[in-house]
């Protein structure tokens, strides 16, 4: 799960990472009260996960209550690249002498955490990586040993930070690594890390991605929410434990296993259609999960036809068939379904479906055939709608 800036900074503060003092706010009144408490000047910052918020008008400086009120009012409810601003972070304005970049990421390729540091902070780091790769110091950390003081020094010297902040930058990197490990993040990124005129260092932004699989032992983290990023169908799917991503097309997709679902999207595309969603019902899906998934898919009004593509391993096809039958019973869908069942207990599944005689449900033997059929049906529905 990707955290909002202020959620990341609150995590940082708990681990001793130096951050400016600040408070979250959901109303103009809360924002002004926060600004009064913190003291002016303050930055009024839109809490949405969009790079370059500042340039898009999502960050404004307020020197007094009037300005705080004005900016909070302007930013709350604003649409930034499709995301609505529901929350603000009001924080004491910082004086900046230098801007650095620091991050800890999960490097799948090396199967180790990768720590990066650059003196080219405050700008698009991907552009820096492309134009001047040597400007970013890299270091892999042995996950069993953990981050050592010498790692911090080596990164600081290699990145060429100012000599007088080698130690505090090293300490900051160690703290960010602690956040990464203790909070079970897969990404901790700060851009910029600033050096103040008093030669202190501070995390001025925070981008943290937590590992959802770790939430069973991080109850507090599991409670964090980003209202701006939550699509209603995606939220519904999440509550039901389904992996659902909304897409732009009109063909609802359900499959088991991320790879197969992605492949299904590709095959539908090649057949001339466009998927309305990615939905992985997961391994071992039971009938209720399938019923639930059908509800989520049909909650998207763009859907004009649905494709079930199941190849059962841990998933049993008879369970899928039962789930679909229940869904038809409860929801009585108005769009056509194309169903392809293969794998564990496929014969039982197909038999159950045949016996149920569901209206407007077509079974197909192959994935390619199923894709062609659903594209055809979706086109007809669209036309007839």
């Amino acid at each position: 799960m990707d955290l909002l800036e202020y959620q990341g900074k609150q995590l940082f503060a708990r681990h001793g990472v130096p951050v400016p003092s600040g408070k979250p706010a959901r109303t103009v009144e809360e924002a002004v009260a926060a600004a009064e408490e913190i003291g002016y000047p303050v930055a009024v910052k839109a809490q949405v996960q969009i790079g370059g918020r500042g340039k898009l008008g999502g960050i404004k400086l307020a020197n007094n209550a009037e300005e705080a009120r004005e900016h909070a009012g302007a930013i709350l409810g604003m649409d930034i690249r499709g995301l609505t601003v529901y929350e603000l972070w009001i924080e004491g304005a910082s004086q900046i002498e230098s801007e650095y970049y620091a991050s800890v990421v999960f490097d799948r390729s090396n199967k180790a955490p990768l720590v990066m540091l650059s003196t080219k902070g405050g700008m698009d780091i991907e552009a820096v990586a492309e134009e001047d790769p040597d400007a970013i110091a890299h270091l892999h950390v042995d996950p069993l040993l953990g981050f050592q003081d010498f790692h911090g020094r080596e990164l600081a010297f290699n990145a060429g930070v100012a000599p007088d902040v080698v130690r505090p930058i090293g300490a900051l990197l160690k703290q960010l690594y602690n956040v990464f490990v203790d909070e079970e993040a897969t990404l901790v990124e700060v851009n910029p890390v600033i050096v103040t005129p008093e030669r202190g260092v501070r995390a001025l932004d925070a981008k943290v991605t937590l590992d959802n699989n770790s939430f069973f032992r991080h109850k507090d983290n599991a409670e964090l929410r980003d209202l701006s990023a939550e699509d209603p169908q995606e939220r519904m799917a999440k509550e039901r434990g389904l992996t659902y991503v909304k897409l732009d097309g009109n063909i609802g997709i359900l499959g088991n296993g991320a790879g197969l679902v992605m492949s299904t999207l590709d095959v539908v595309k090649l057949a001339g259609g466009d998927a309305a969603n990615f939905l992985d019902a997961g391994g071992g899906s039971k009938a209720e999960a399938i019923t639930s998934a059908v509800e989520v898919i049909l909650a998207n009004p763009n859907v004009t036809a649905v494709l079930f593509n199941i190849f059962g391993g841990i998933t049993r096809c008879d369970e899928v068939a039962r789930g679909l039958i229940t869904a038809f019973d409860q929801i009585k869908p108005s769009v056509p379904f194309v169903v392809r069942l293969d794998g564990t207990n496929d014969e039982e599944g197909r038999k159950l479906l045949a016996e149920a005689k569901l209206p407007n449900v077509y079974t197909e033997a192959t994935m390619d055939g199923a894709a062609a059929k659903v594209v055809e049906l979706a086109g007809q529905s669209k036309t007839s709608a």
Partner: protein
Amino acid sequence: MSILIDENTRLVTAGITGSEGKFHTLRNRDYGTNVVAGVTPGKGGQEVEGIPVFNTYAEAVEKQGANTAMVFVPPPFAADSILEAEDAGIELIIAITEGIPAHDELRAYATIKKNGRSRLIGPNCPGILSPGKANVGIIPAAFFKPGNVGVVSRSGTLTYQIGNVLAQEGFGNSSIVGIGGDPVPGTDFVDAVKLFQEDPQTELIVLSGEIGGDAEEKAAEYIAEHVTKPVVAYIAGFSAPPGKTMGHAGAIVSGSSGGAEGKAAALEAKGVKVGKTPTQVAELAIQLLGAAA
């Protein structure tokens, strides 16, 4: 021949007393896999359909000579189970469990690598099938028969899909290996391709990848340098929009790298044929092995 599992496999299942663990263990045994033990702490001394259950892997190794473990325990306890299997000296650990925390996987992987005595397959994988010899995991074996095509895949269901298409075209398999889609797979494409290259039964290697990470690109490099057998690849996710996470932690498209087009290009640059759909993969396999099939 085949790779990783065969007639010499002596399987112990962790989580054998859970419903899924029991279901698939018995299915594996029905297929012919030599299931010698189960492990469930606190249930030592019980039996599951004639399979003795122990409190620890160490006992399963000592008393039953287990050499292969299948991990079916829930995510919060799975990494601990993998580490216990490693500590007990199990040579091959196949972790089916999905949803293990990434940092747990990292520590387990680093420890296995450090000690150098075990190989881990998965986690979050469907297991391994060596048709006609042994099946460990959840791969539906009925679709596959012995043959000369080795399959390695990041995705479980895609593995079945591709294997099935190949089977319909008359191909059989030496082994089918699901390496899983998690951030830290214990065995990656390079490892599996190396094993298939060394396996005399395997005459064609099918590699099924997906968007995210750079495992396919690394495999392309390795194949160019070390593999003499023909390789056909499939990459899922051509139509995935950038920046969306789709299930597998691996399936994240980040910027320019990790995309399906880039992976396909990297493989083709090294002489690997890439299919756009599972069906195309089978067609390519026929082209390359037509005479042999």
